[in-house]
């Protein structure tokens, strides 16, 4: 009998599904609502308040510019150049950073020799050296790769070293009690325990690397999103300028969330 009653009453609760949905998800709606509100405000400001396309482009104009640049193949060309610069710089920065971080954690000599350079150069705004690299290596891709690698490498070095060093000594003692060699201690304890740190370094590197690409291109390039931006600024083409910025922002967000996903796959114990 009780079963019948429950079944009879079940549809009654579905009469107001919208209200129930709002109640359950209201906290999640704040994010999208805020973005939509911001875009709307931007649209209104640029159309009616500032109303000067030489100073500010509206979101609809930017979307139009993006579509136009896509149609002409310009956006793809710029994106591909920047992507190449970022990729080579980022990968070499990460690989070298991990290697240097590991050697600093494992050898006192390496630590002593490298520490002053790492601390000094990490604090220096290395993007300021971008014009110099362009003078040295030209306006092509290579000078940007160097700038990106230089920006990415330091947080990776520092995080890798810190990760290895903060390995719980009791865990090391435990594998040592089973007769582990130095190499086994490294591969079975220190390295996995440092992985979350190393990942954090990679993540910091994404933002810094993207800054490197754009800034280096601003100082002189034949193509790339940074070059698109500076070229558009010179001709007061606000929609194209914002198009470049938006594409960069989306790339940054996608890269960071891809890393968060990868981290969850590779570091599932956290």
């Amino acid at each position: 009998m009780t079963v019948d009653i429950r079944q009879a009453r079940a549809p009654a609760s579905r009469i107001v599904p919208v209200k129930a949905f709002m109640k359950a998800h209201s906290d999640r709606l704040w994010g999208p609502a805020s973005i939509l509100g911001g875009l709307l405000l931007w649209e209104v400001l640029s159309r009616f308040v500032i109303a000067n396309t030489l100073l500010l482009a509206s979101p609809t104009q930017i979307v139009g510019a993006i579509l136009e640049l896509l149609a002409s193949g310009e956006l793809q060309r710029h994106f591909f150049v920047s992507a190449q610069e970022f990729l080579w710089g980022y990968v070499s920065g990460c690989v070298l950073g991990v290697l240097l971080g590991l050697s600093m954690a494992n050898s006192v000599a390496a630590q002593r020799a490298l520490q002053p350079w790492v601390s000094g150069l990490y604090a220096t705004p290395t993007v300021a050296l971008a014009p110099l690299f362009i003078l040295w290596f030209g306006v092509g891709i290579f000078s940007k790769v160097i700038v990106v690698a230089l920006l990415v490498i330091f947080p990776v070095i520092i995080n890798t070293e810190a990760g290895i060093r903060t390995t719980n000594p009791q865990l090391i003692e435990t594998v040592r009690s089973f007769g582990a060699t130095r190499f086994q201690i490294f591969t079975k304890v220190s390295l996995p325990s440092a992985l979350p740190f190393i990942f954090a370094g990679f993540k910091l590197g994404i933002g810094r690397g993207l800054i490197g690409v754009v800034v280096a291109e601003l100082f002189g390039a034949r193509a790339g999103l940074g070059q698109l931006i500076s070229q558009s600024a010179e001709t007061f083409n606000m929609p194209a300028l914002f198009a470049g910025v938006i594409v960069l922002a989306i790339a940054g967000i996608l890269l960071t969330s891809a890393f968060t996903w990868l981290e969850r796959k590779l570091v599932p114990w956290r």
Partner: protein
Amino acid sequence: MTDASYLPVSKLRVSNLSKRFGSLEVLKKIELDVVKGEFISIVGPSGCGKTTLLRIIGGLEHSDEGECKINGKNIDGPGKDRGFVFQQDNLLPWRTVQSNTEIGLEIASERLSKHRERIRSLLELVGLAGFENYYPRQLSGGMRQRVNLARALAIDPQILLMDEPFSALDAQTREIMQTELLRIWEEGRKTVLFVTHQIDEAVYLSDRVVVLARRPGRIQEIVEVDLPRPRPLSIKRTPHFVSYVDHIWKLIEHDVRESVLVEHI
């Protein structure tokens, strides 16, 4: 009585062992003979060097004087013949129960597939069947200590060295783990050296209790515990059991009071 297996075989022999940290004499002229299959506890006040003694036998530390021999062979460093159970469980957080248990075999470069069946029955023995794929953070303190024990047993050591393995557990879990340890021990009758500061735990588990004094750490008395096995928990309330605990407590009471005073200054 001509059968050799009836003769007590010395498994571990510690003779004239001394150890100092700087000017502090931690252990002085320790003499101990452990027979195969024996369950020995080492008790004493804090600072008596009981953990240091265990670590020297485990090969994690070196002595300054004297000898430590297993099956007549000198100890130089950690080895597959000894399994160490740590005070903190020290499980690797990125490994599951199963692969934490297998780490000793991995370090010894054993083929894991060869040991699958034995590891399975070992995990069942320590009560972890069904938890093979859990990560340490998903386990309670008692279960983590079971993994700690299984990890040491997985390499099939001749001697099990246990360093206050239950001290971080609450009182009830601790009593359960004591009975569990005896149940597991009855299965293989490995030689066990068990360090604890809790006297009733030592008496309940052991064949003999080594009572250490402090400053310098030295053997005060070795108490034979003549209680029948298997031992139910209720044995802890029998007069015979209580008299052992009282006797040992009287041996170390003075030292304990002193160490408590020192620690509070």
